[in-house]
């Protein structure tokens, strides 16, 4: 077993761990905005590390996996922000613990 | 074919049927469109599992992206609720 | 090496011009209106070269991709294909000439490109020898006619277009499923190859795809339970399009039904059902036409009735009946095209589609009204005209149908002809009634196409027996399936 395989497995394990975290976060967090954090941020990280892990294990698809990871980095935040924005526009309720609403402050000016 | 892949594709097909039924039943047309797009995406996965990547690609690009966009535009131009009973 | 008698050209030439005209349309919008005219003229040249061979009894083939059927798509023209494709392009030529002066509503360039595609698709259906090709051409045909029916963008034309779209798409999917089932049975899509293979297939496995394909085509062919789009679509469309839909689209769909029924499938098992459907179509169409106040709607229902008539004749299933059916098809296409074109002129002159508003029109615009009368008389089947001989032939063959149904249909066809005569007579009477209403004088350019069509009808009327002999040849060639099969497959078994 080469060193790349070990690194690959480690990365895939990390990716799976992040997926698990985001799943727990989706269930446990109180409102849409915090849940979207779990659904986008940690999922992005999980996806990237598992894809690159697979790429390290099979060298012929390494370049493809890096390109894929780049695409995920580029697109996931955009869709996440668009979703959250849509949620804000339809006035999805916030949790009581929210202390600051920067968007409202900016719009209010 | 691998038995797990077979089971998985059957699972996806059942999910697709559920999504289509939901798309018919739901009152909010926007939600119906989204259910339909989801069904399309699942079908394209099934195509991939059945080793038809060409069809899967067209289904994903046209069924799940373009058609959905066109339907959303149509919903936006008309009424969002399904009043007809 | 270049052989102009190649049926592929009939599809490729229109496509070439269609793609070319979308490029030049932003710059030279004025030129686009001549495109359908050029296209159908070029097609007619090709048809001439094909016709020289076809009339000597050979079947002209056009292969694609340089290989032999059944592995590649083939277009085959026998006498039946030839007469249909000739009709499509003659009518396409004359109607597009009419459209040049008739269409004023924007965007005219897109209208003419869509019309080119309509001509292309009708020609394609009528020459192809491949079942999946029928589906593809059918899709082009229905999509282009959807656009053209809804072209005026008024409320009723959008509504009619929507009805048409829904039914047409449904029909398309039925057709596709039928073709898929056929492919699952036989593993091939070439019509001749399917026909040779279907002999080894059970009757139930054959029935289901046949019924699916039949209903898919019957929507476009306006057979009885599936024609609710037609009475809305024809009045709502611009008059040139109504003429094309009525004269060509319906006819090509019926042609496809004939080809699929006779050449591809075993023929005899489906006849009684087809006969009853056709009888109902005839009866429903003529009765409904009788009660219409709207001129174009009346003509649309009359189209349904006529379709029922020639499908009825075809479904008797003898050689004489197929011959009569094709002859009636020719008569209907030409005369109904004239009627719709003239109706377009009338509607433009008075601004309403109501028949009663036409009072006195015939006293102002004599030529137009006379053309209308001529075409209507030929459609009804009044003795000196061509329609008389075709209807006579149909009545003769109907008695061949076994049992009570034969006599019933004989009586019904006569009854339908009388009804047809009555409602057309009503229009004549109103046309030539005295009235002090003012109409615009007719635009002489618009009258040319219906005039030429009536001239064709007169020529047909002057030698009806030679036409009927030719249709008899057609029917003979159609019934002897093996000639078609062997010449398409080239000795392949």
């Amino acid at each position, binding site marked *: 077993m080469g060193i790349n395989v070990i690194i690959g497995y480690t990365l895939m394990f990390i990716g799976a761990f992040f997926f698990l975290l985001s799943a727990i976060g989706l269930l446990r967090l109180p409102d849409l905005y915090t849940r979207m954090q779990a659904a986008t941020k940690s999922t992005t990280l999980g996806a990237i590390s598992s894809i690159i892990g697979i790429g390290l294990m099979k060298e012929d698809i390494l370049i493809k996996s890096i390109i894929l990871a780049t695409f995920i980095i*580029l697109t996931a935040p955009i869709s996440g922000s668009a979703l959250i924005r849509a949620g804000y526009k339809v006035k999805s309720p916030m949790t009581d613990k929210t202390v600051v609403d920067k968007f409202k402050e900016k719009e209010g000016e | 074919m691998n038995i797990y892949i077979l089971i998985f594709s059957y699972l996806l097909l059942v999910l697709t049927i559920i999504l289509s039924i939901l798309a018919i039943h739901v009152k909010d047309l926007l939600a119906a469109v989204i259910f339909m797009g989801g069904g399309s995406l699942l079908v394209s996965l099934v195509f991939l599992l059945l080793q038809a990547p060409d069809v899967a690609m067209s289904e994903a690009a046209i069924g799940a992206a373009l058609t959905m966009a066109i339907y959303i535009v149509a919903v936006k131009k008309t009424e969002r609720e399904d009043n007809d009973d | 090496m270049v052989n102009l008698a190649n049926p592929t050209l009939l599809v*490729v030439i229109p496509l070439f011009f269609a793609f070319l005209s979308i490029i030049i349309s*932003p710059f030279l919008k004025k030129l686009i209106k001549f495109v359908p005219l050029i296209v159908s003229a070029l097609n007619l040249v090709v048809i001439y070269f094909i016709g020289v061979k076809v009339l000597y009894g050979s079947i002209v083939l056009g292969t*694609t991709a340089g290989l032999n059927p059944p592995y590649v798509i083939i277009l085959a023209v026998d006498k039946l294909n030839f007469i249909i494709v000739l009709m499509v392009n003659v009518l396409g030529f004359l109607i597009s000439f009419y459209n040049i002066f008739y269409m004023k509503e924007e965007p005219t360039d897109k209208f003419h490109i869509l019309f080119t*595609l309509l001509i292309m698709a009708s020609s394609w259906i009528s020459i192809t020898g491949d079942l999946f090709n029928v589906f593809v051409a059918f899709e082009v045909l229905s999509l282009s006619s959807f656009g053209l029916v809804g072209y005026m963008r008024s409320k009723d034309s959008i509504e009619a277009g929507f009805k048409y779209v829904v039914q047409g798409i449904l029909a398309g999917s039925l057709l596709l499923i039928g073709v898929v089932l056929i492919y699952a*049975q036989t593993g091939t899509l070439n019509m001749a190859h399917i026909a040779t293979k279907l002999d080894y297939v059970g009757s139930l496995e054959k029935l289901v795809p046949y019924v699916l394909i039949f209903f898919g085509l019957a929507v476009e062919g306006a057979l009885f339970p599936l024609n609710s789009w037609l009475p809305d679509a024809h009045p709502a469309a611009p008059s040139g399009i109504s003429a094309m839909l009525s004269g060509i689209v319906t006819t090509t769909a019926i042609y496809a039904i004939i080809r699929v029924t006779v050449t591809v499938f075993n023929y005899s098992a489906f006849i009684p059902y087809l006969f009853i459907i056709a009888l109902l179509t005839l009866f429903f169409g003529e009765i409904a036409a009788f009660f219409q106040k709207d001129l174009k709607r009346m003509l649309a229902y009359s189209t349904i009735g006529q379709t029922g008539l020639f499908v009825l004749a075809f479904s008797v299933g003898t050689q004489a009946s197929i011959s009569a059916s094709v002859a009636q098809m020719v008569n209907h296409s030409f005369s109904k095209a004239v009627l719709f074109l003239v109706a377009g002129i009338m509607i433009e002159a008075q601004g309403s589609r109501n028949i009663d508003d036409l009072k006195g029109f015939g006293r102002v615009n004599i030529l137009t009204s006379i053309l209308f009368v001529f075409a209507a008389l030929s459609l009804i089947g009044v003795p000196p005209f061509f329609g008389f001989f075709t209807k006579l032939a149909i009545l003769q063959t109907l008695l061949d149908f076994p049992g009570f149904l034969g006599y019933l249909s004989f009586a019904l066809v006569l009854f339908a002809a009388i009804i047809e005569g009555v409602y057309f007579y009503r229009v004549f009477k109103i046309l030539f009634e005295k009235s002090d209403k003012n109409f615009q004088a007719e635009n002489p350019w618009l009258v040319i196409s219906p005039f030429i069509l009536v001239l064709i009808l007169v020529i047909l009327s002057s030698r009806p027996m030679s036409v009927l002999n030719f249709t008899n040849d057609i029917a003979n060639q159609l019934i002897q399936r093996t000639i078609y099969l062997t010449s398409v497959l080239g000795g392949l078994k």
Partner: protein
Amino acid sequence: MIRKIVYGVFILIIIAAIAIFMSNYKFGVDKMDVGKYYLDNTVPQTGAANVVTSVTLFYRGFDTLGEVTVLFTAALGVAVLYFMGENKRKQKLQESNFVTKIGTRVVFPFILLTGAYIFMHGHLTPGGGFQGGALIATGFLLLYLAYEETSIDRKKFYLVEGLGGLTYVIIGLLGFFMKGSFLANVLPNGTLFDLLSGGIMLPIYIGVGLKVGSELSNIIDDLMCEVKCEEAGGEE
């Protein structure tokens, strides 16, 4: 409620009938002699690594020409039905946020690149002109969603569309004039798995890809037109 149950039972009966009927059918092996011919002869006759592409573009290329025309007709029909003429309307959409705008700008060229890659490698890898074209169109869709003032230059898109279609027809006609049969293979097959292999497939798929992409973009433009109509429809 009873009506729903009746409908449900009815649908179940239909499904059962179809299932029983279809179980008589045997898809696959011994009836597919045409399909077998394709599998055996694709590489020597066409030089394409992807058999699906060789069937769609070579053996049944005439059908594909028809499918291209179907899309062409659909785009024209939409353009006719959504024709605005003089009274152009303009409504403002909700403005997208900063992230979407910048992100779209970054991603858009990559989407175009991926689409071009897919339709240029149609004869080697899965995919082809239709898929690549659809992908390109989704790129334009993204632009429309992100920027409210987007409007494509219809004249150029018509040019691309027409040229794509003409490529197909002219290559077919070349086959007709040189080998006497429409769409005959007039280009050398090349070595298998090379980009420049597969004879006429590569240029045809490039044409189809560009055509489908521009056509679908035109449809999107027409549909968005009522919401935010800038110049579309007014192609004088």
